[in-house]
């Protein structure tokens, strides 16, 4: 019996290790280099996404989906198509919103927190977020994937986001999943699919 339990524990812990294994320093360096090489080449990026809002007390995650488009240096459109239409555009210090046809604009000017959020979203999707000044970062290997965990250093940012986890496809070195943790129980998980890099995207796309 005891051996059985020991074996079981070994099996479970072995499995855990298989799921998430720490990278060595050499692996970290090579992983960062790969991601930076790819993200540097990104001039435009469009991707479909599915967002799962997980709240511990709910019986089911809240699922919404749509399309995200980014163009260098900082044009960003986040468009929800299901189950409702809601578009948010970050453009020249402005946030443009289209909520089921109702349009509005917010001038964020030099708002630090929005600047950070913008950088964060772009960084999350492109993968280029390895800023040791902003985050405490840890690196893991998964089956066919790499995982980087970012803990914000800034107190203001930390109030909103406890941790950001980016999952990368090992082959392509691009982000396939973004997970924003608010607490240990509650998080938002965004799965990116059908990514197209450097297709021609006109500036006029970025409007509400």
């Amino acid at each position: 019996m005891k051996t059985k339990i020991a074996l079981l524990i070994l099996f479970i812990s072995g499995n855990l290790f298989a799921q998430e294994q720490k990278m060595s320093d050499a692996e970290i360096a090579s992983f960062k280099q790969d991601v930076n090489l790819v993200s540097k080449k990104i001039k435009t990026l469009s991707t479909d996404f599915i967002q799962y809002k997980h709240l511990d007390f709910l019986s089911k995650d809240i699922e919404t989906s749509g399309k995200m488009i980014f163009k260098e240096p900082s044009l960003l459109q986040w468009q929800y198509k299901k189950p409702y239409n809601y578009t948010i555009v970050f453009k020249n210090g402005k946030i443009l919103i289209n909520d089921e046809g109702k349009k509005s604009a917010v001038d964020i000017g030099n708002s630090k927190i929005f600047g950070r959020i913008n950088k964060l979203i772009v960084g999350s999707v492109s993968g280029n977020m390895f800023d040791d000044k902003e985050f405490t970062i840890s690196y893991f290997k998964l089956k066919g994937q790499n995982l980087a965990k970012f803990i914000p250093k800034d107190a203001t940012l930390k109030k909103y986001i406890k941790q950001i986890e980016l999952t990368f496809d090992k082959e392509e070195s691009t982000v396939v999943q973004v997970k924003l943790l608010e607490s240990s129980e509650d998080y938002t998980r965004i799965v990116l699919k059908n990514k197209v890099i450097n297709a021609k995207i006109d500036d006029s796309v970025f409007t509400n």
Partner: protein
Amino acid sequence: MQKSTIQFLLINCLLAIVLVSCGSVTKNYIPKKLDKTAIEVPYFSDSKTDYVYKTNITVYGNELSGIFIAKKINDTLHRIVFTTEFGNKLMDFEISDKSFKVNSIVSELDRKILINTLKQDFRLLLKKEYLIEEQFENESNNIYKSKDGKRDNYLFISKKEGKLEKVVHCSKTKEKFTIKFSSKNNIFAENIQIIHQNIKLKIELNHFKSE
């Protein structure tokens, strides 16, 4: 003499204004014999349902939108979370008839007056049972009066379908706010509007189904 007449008129006018308000809820309605002493509201009463609504809040001309989530977590308690469309939590409350706890709120919204207003709104929104003291009617509704501390709630139930269509929350002198419900099946409300009369605040909830 003239002075006192003016004063008298003024007082009368003031009284008229004061009396119109909540009196106006029942003014044009005919008193009726009570046909029930309690009313149960089904709209947020199922502990198995995740109540998820796309939300638009208009406050003094400013617009705020997001997702409103409510869940009954035990016999008396509801959890309420309001997030942005991106999913980040703006506020997180636990609320019952008698208790209220703020689990979290972003600093931009952390204002006592706002929290107290929402507490009052949500408490009424989630209220499951009303004890009835008086009854009235008009052409289309049976109207039930229920005491709420020093205030009153008036419940409008359609005669045709027996659905709760609105709750009007009044002080002795004024209508404070109204909650309007639209429900197809009388179990779940697809659209809800919370409209304040004394401050420029309107909260609209539209149910959406997750994929």
